[in-house]
C-alpha cells in the first residue's frame, strides 16, 4: 500500500504535469481542428517559452515576467512561421505539413543550441512556499500551475463560445469551406489560431521551466507524452485534450509511485488500448474532412 502522504503529493504532482500537458497540447489540438495540420513545431515554442523564462528571470530576477516574455515571443514566432511557412501547406495533404513542422522543430532546436548552448539551465521556482494539506507538505507553485491551466481552459471555452471570432473558429473546425463561403476571412482565422497555439505552448514551457531543467531537447523529451495525450483525447477535441492531459498526468505520477518504469509505459499502454477500441481517440471525429 502506498503511503497516503506520498499519494497526495503524487496526485498534486500529477495534476501539475497534466496542466503542462494540457497547455502544451491545446495548441496542437486547435491547429489540427481548424487547419488540419499536425504542428509538431508547437514543441519548439514550448522550449522557446522555457528558455526565455530562463533568460529573463536571470537578467531581471522575476520568473513571472520571464514567463510573460516567453508567451509573447512564442506567439510572435508562431505568427512569423505561420505566415512564412504554413500558409503554403494548407492546401496540401497532412503528411506534407507534418514533415515541414518536424523540420521546423529540428531546425529550431539547432538554433536553441546555437544561442543557449547544450548545458541544462535551472530556473528558480517563483513561489517557494509550501502548503500543509492534511499533514503533507505541498509546493504552492504546483497548485498555481494547475489553477492557471484551469483558468486557461475556462478562458478558451469562453472565447470559443462567447465571442464571434471563437464561434467562427468552431464553425471552421466543423467545416472550413462553409465558413469561407459565408465570407469569413479564414486565412486570418488560421493565423490567429496559430498565434494562440504558439502562446499556449510557450506558456506551457514557461510554467514547466521552474519544475525541470531547461535544455535544448526538452521539446523532444515531452513529445511522446504530448502525442499520447492528443491521441488518447482525440485530435482536434479540446474537451478530449483536457481530460486526457490530466489522465496521462495522473498515470505518469501515480504509476511512478508504484513502479518507476510504469511512468512511461502506462500511458502508452492506455493509448494502445484506446486506439484498439476507438481508432480516433476518445473524442476524435471519425472523418478527416477538409
Amino acid at each position, binding site marked *: 500500500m502506498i503511503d497516503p502522504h506520498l499519494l497526495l503529493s503524487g496526485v498534486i504532482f500529477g495534476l501539475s504535469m497534466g496542466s503542462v500537458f494540457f497547455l502544451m497540447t491545446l495548441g496542437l489540438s486547435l491547429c*489540427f481542428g481548424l487547419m488540419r495540420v*499536425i504542428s509538431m513545431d508547437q514543441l519548439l515554442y514550448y522550449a522557446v517559452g522555457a528558455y526565455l523564462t530562463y533568460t529573463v528571470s536571470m537578467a531581471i530576477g522575476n520568473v513571472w515576467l520571464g514567463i510573460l516574455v516567453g508567451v509573447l515571443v512564442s506567439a510572435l514566432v508562431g505568427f512569423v512561421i505561420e505566415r512564412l*511557412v504554413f500558409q*503554403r501547406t494548407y492546401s496540401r495533404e*497532412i*503528411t*506534407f505539413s*507534418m*514533415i*515541414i513542422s*518536424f*523540420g*521546423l*522543430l*529540428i*531546425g*529550431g*532546436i*539547432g*538554433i536553441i*543550441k*546555437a544561442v543557449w548552448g547544450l548545458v541544462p539551465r535551472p530556473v528558480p521556482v517563483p513561489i517557494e512556499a509550501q502548503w500543509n494539506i492534511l499533514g503533507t507538505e505541498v509546493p504552492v507553485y504546483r497548485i498555481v500551475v494547475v489553477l492557471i491551466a484551469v483558468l486557461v481552459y475556462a478562458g478558451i471555452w469562453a472565447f470559443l463560445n462567447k465571442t464571434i471570432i471563437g464561434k467562427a473558429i468552431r464553425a471552421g473546425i466543423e467545416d472550413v469551406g462553409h465558413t469561407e463561403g459565408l465570407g469569413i476571412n479564414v486565412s486570418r482565422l488560421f493565423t490567429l489560431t496559430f498565434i494562440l497555439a504558439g502562446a499556449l505552448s510557450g506558456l506551457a514551457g514557461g510554467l514547466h521551466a521552474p519544475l525541470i531543467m531547461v535544455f535544448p*531537447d526538452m521539446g*523532444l*523529451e515531452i*513529445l*511522446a507524452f504530448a*502525442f*499520447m495525450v*492528443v*491521441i488518447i483525447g482525440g*485530435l482536434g477535441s479540446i474537451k478530449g485534450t483536457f481530460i486526457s492531459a490530466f489522465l496521462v498526468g495522473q498515470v505518469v505520477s501515480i504509476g511512478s509511485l508504484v513502479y*518507476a*518504469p510504469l511512468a*512511461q*509505459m502506462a500511458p*502508452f499502454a492506455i*493509448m*494502445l488500448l484506446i*486506439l*484498439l477500441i476507438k*481508432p*480516433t*481517440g476518445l473524442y476524435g471525429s471519425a472523418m*478527416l474532412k477538409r
Partner: protein
Amino acid sequence: MNVLRWWSGLLVAFALLLLLRITLPLPFNNEIVIFAIYVIGCNFLLGRVGFISFGQPAYLAVGAYGTAFYLYYFGTNPFVGILVGVIAGIVVAAIVGPLFVRLRSDYFALVNLALAVIIFFMMQKMLATYTFGDNGLELLTKMDSTPIIDITRPEGFYVLAFVSAFGVWALYKYLDDSVFGACCLAAKVNEDKLRFLGYSNFGVRLMAFIVANTTTAFAGTLYAIHQGLVSPEMSSPARVADPVVVTILGGVGTLYGPLVGSVAFVGMKDLISKYIGHWELVVGVLLIFVMLAGERGIWGSLEPLLRRWVLRQREAEKPAVADAGVKAR
C-alpha cells in the same frame, strides 16, 4: 533481354556504390550502406502506402537489441544473431501492425513516434538490468569471427552489407513491379477502388508494414554487428527524424532515393558536424527547403532527366538495329 534490362538499373547503382568504396574510407561506406537499408522501409511506407512513420528507429532498435541479446547472453555466431534480430523485427511488426495500419495516416505517424520513444525509455530504464542503460551492450568481444569472410571485421562486414543491400533492393524492385506493389499504390490513392477490385485494404497495408519494418529491423541487426555496441541512443527522440529526412532528401517513393539520400546525408553530416556544428539546424532547414521546393528530393529530380536521356539513347539505337535486321534478310 528483358531480364537484363530489369537488372541493369540495379547493377549500375551498385557498381557506382562500389566506386564509392574505392574512393572513400571504409567506415563511411559501411555507414552509407546500412543507412540506405534503414531508410528504404520508411521510403516504401511513405511513397507506396502513404504512411509517414516517424517511428522507424523503434524497429531499428528492435532488430539491434534482438541481435545484441542473442550475442550477449546466448550465443556467439553473428549470423544467428542477425537471424534472431530479423525474427524479432517480424514479430514486433506483426504484433503492432494490425493495430497501427487501421489508423488514419496522421495518427499512424504519431503512434509510431510514441512507440520509438517508449522503446527508448524501455531500453534505457525499464530493462536497464539487461541492457545496461545508456552504457549499452558491448558485443565486440562476444562474437566469433566467421570463416571465409570475417564479418566482425569492417572489411568483411562491408561485403555482407553490400550483398545484403543488393538483395534488399532487388526485393523492393520486385515488390514495386508486382501486383502487391500496385495494390499498395492503390491503397494510397483510393481505398474504395482497391476494395472494389477484391483486395483487402487492411491486408495490403499490413503486409507492406511488416515488410518495411522487417527491413528496418534488419538494418538494426547490421548496426549491432558493425558497431559492436548497442545502446538506447539509436531510438532516442533526437534521432527519429533521420529516416524521414533521408527519405525526403533522396526522393519519396523512388527506388534509388534512399541510396542517393544516404550518401548525401551521411556525407553532409560528416562535413557539417566537423566544420559547422549545429547539425539539427541544417537538417531542419534542408527538410523544409526540399519540401517547399517541390518535395521531389535529389533522386526524384534526377530520375526523370536520366530516364529521358536513356530513352533518347535507345531511340538513337533503334533505327540502326532495324537497318541491320533488313540487311540480314
